[in-house]
């Protein structure tokens, strides 16, 4: 079964550093997403990406964040100048147009900012 792959599975970074979280969505999917889940809280939408541009973003997704699809397969989330409150599980997801099976989520990257 096709999978969404995320790397690394766990990243520890110092406050103020930049991190890049990587995702390889399912190859024929068209929509790509980043969500995050702070420990003990809801899964929250960050950003959606379609046709090589951001289609929607939440209030959380401020200038500190950026996304890129640098080649045909990777989809990255960059967090500049990380803060302690950025510590969370970050999930990448992808879906096909009109999918009846919802999104496929990756297994997540646990980001710990110290």
């Amino acid at each position: 079964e096709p999978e969404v792959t995320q790397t690394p599975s766990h990243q520890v970074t110092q406050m103020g550093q930049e991190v890049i979280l990587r995702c390889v969505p399912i190859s024929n999917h068209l929509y790509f997403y980043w969500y995050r889940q702070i420990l003990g809280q809801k899964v929250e939408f960050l950003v959606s990406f379609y046709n090589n541009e951001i289609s929607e973003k939440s209030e959380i997704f401020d200038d500190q964040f950026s996304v890129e699809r640098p080649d045909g397969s990777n989809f990255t989330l960059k967090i500049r100048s990380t803060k302690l409150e950025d510590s969370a599980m970050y999930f990448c997801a992808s879906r096909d147009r009109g999918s009846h099976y919802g999104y496929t989520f990756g297994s997540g990257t646990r980001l710990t900012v110290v």
Partner: protein
Amino acid sequence: EDKVVQSPLSLVVHEGDTVTLNCSYEVTNFRSLLWYKQEKKAPTFLFMLTSSGIEKKSGRLSSILDKKELFSILNITATQTGDSAIYLCAVEPEDGAGSYQLTFGKGTKLSVIP
């Protein structure tokens, strides 16, 4: 603002019991409601519901949607210890941008004890 409320927040049952998990929602321009199971990491897809009154089944799990009363239930019969997980409900709006971002509830943590 879209809103999803799940109840109960946690539940402890014995193996063999039947459980019902609840999800109520408010969303502008409803497109679908989705149920996910979250064990260690990634939410895994269970059901996508778009029409009222049509039960979806997968083994011991079933779900139904009531679009008039704005809720859904997820039933699990003959529970097993492997059903222990957090069950997430999410709604997907029909938006013009086509991004179909999900709004999640806090989840119901189900613990099945032998």
